[in-house]
């Protein structure tokens, strides 16, 4: 398979979001250190989870969440708590 890296920021620039000040994702980051597979990094279609090598910790941003909820099912340590954002907030698909 060819090495084709998607430019996720470019892709997300075509998606409308009504961003809430309140996060709808919480992560118990202390569990992530011992997690080896870290499936959230590759699973999230919006690449919202990244690993900060310098700080050795998980970074996530809920603002670009497409609300598929994949992360809640792939986390092997149940560290990700994902819920729907508050009413009227979050992704707003213009096509869908």
């Amino acid at each position, binding site marked *: *398979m*060819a090495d*084709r*890296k*998607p430019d*996720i920021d*470019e*892709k*997300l620039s*075509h*998606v409308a979001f*009504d961003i809430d000040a309140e996060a709808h994702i919480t992560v118990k980051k202390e569990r992530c250190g011992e997690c080896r*597979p870290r*499936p959230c990094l*590759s*699973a999230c*279609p*919006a*690449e919202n989870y990244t690993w900060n090598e310098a700080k050795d910790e998980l970074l996530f941003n809920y603002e670009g969440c*497409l*609300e*598929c*909820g*994949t992360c809640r*099912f*792939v986390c*092997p340590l149940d560290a990700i708590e994902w819920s*729907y*954002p*508050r*009413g*009227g907030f*979050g*992704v*707003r*698909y*213009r*096509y*869908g």
Partner: protein
Amino acid sequence: MDKVDCVVVGAGPAGSACAIALARKGIKTVLVERGGNAGDKNVASFVLFGDVLGGIIPGYQKEAPLERAAGDNSFMCLREKDFIEFRARLGSYFENPSIFTAYRSRFDRWFSEKAEEAGAELVRGQLVTGLLKENGRVVGIRVGEDELLADVVVGADGIHSVVSREAGLYVDDTSRYMIGVKEVLELPPEVIEERFLLGPGEGCVRDGWGYPVSDVGGLFTIYTNMDAVSVCLFAPVDAVKEARVNLRERFEDLKAHPYLHALVRDSKLREYEAHILADGGRMKVDRLYDDGVLLCGEAGGFNSGMWIGVPSGMLSGLKAAEAVLRAKRTGRYDAAALSCYRDILFETGLPRMLYNAKRYSDFIVNSARKHMEGFTDNLFGLLEDSIMQEVAFQDPEPFPAIETAYAGLVADYVPAWLARPLRALVGVLGRLESWWTKRRIRRTV
């Protein structure tokens, strides 16, 4: 505190269908949607089958926001540089179509407005965060600080249903969950029609398997809107978890494949989307109702598989409404009264349909996952031999059709105990075929 007859949570196809049916019978119904508008949160992965919709809104073809009638459909199989495609065009279908492509954001919004027209109260931009209970019985909903009492709550709030979890009806089975990633790619209508070999306004759906998701039993689908092409790629959530499949990268591989590239090159990205669905459903008839609460749509696991969730969702919404109406006649909304939902569902044949869909999906997805690579290689091998006419020109013996078909398409799937006798039978048939062919050659050439 305010009290209504029924609260329907979620204004998707199931919730709106339910609210329409209830409101038309004079039931005081509130339809609560978490998106600023119905459809804001929804992603289509396939086409809309109009039969159920036609029963709710006769003549919907004239007013619903539909894109193209889909009567030109194909199934294909990809390898990195190759493809095989089986295409079926139902010419007469285009004269009286009932299957359409549509954007969910527009369609769901239109359908929710139909619920308003029918007399339901549509509340937008409100997330139902919990259920109100009294002695274990559901008596209403909670929206943040606000509360609303209802005789019965219908949960139509999707795959991540809050209602099903709060009511203790959630079926914890992710084995059928598929994650889908999708792009809506803009192209002029004439270019779409030229590339997809369609007449003006005609649409198509093209489903496929193989590259670049053959290792995990993934699938993809491409369909045409009026001035955009939707491309969706699916993989089982389990595979994304265990095999660490990166669907974003696989999507780029798919778009770069010669087959896809020829169709969507020079298009402009309109939207990037992702959603989870339960392929083949995860409906369990005894987990669809409890005291004061019913589930329908994807919240109840009504997804008939192969990505076709809208019609089974709508139908389940209508049946939930019927159950509410029947319960109202008895004046009770406890689990015993609402258990008529189960009977109504069985009358429609929907559970059997879902069961069949599940088996169909099992066959397609699981056998795809288990055998996809081998099957794909065999199929390509067989066609390469015949298409490239290697056999005809290089082999003086007549082409052994029976042996080749058996080895290429059947042998891998035969149970061990049957392999030997079947192999022997194929051997005999093969010799007969060879003798027969040689005899015909002698008589005709």
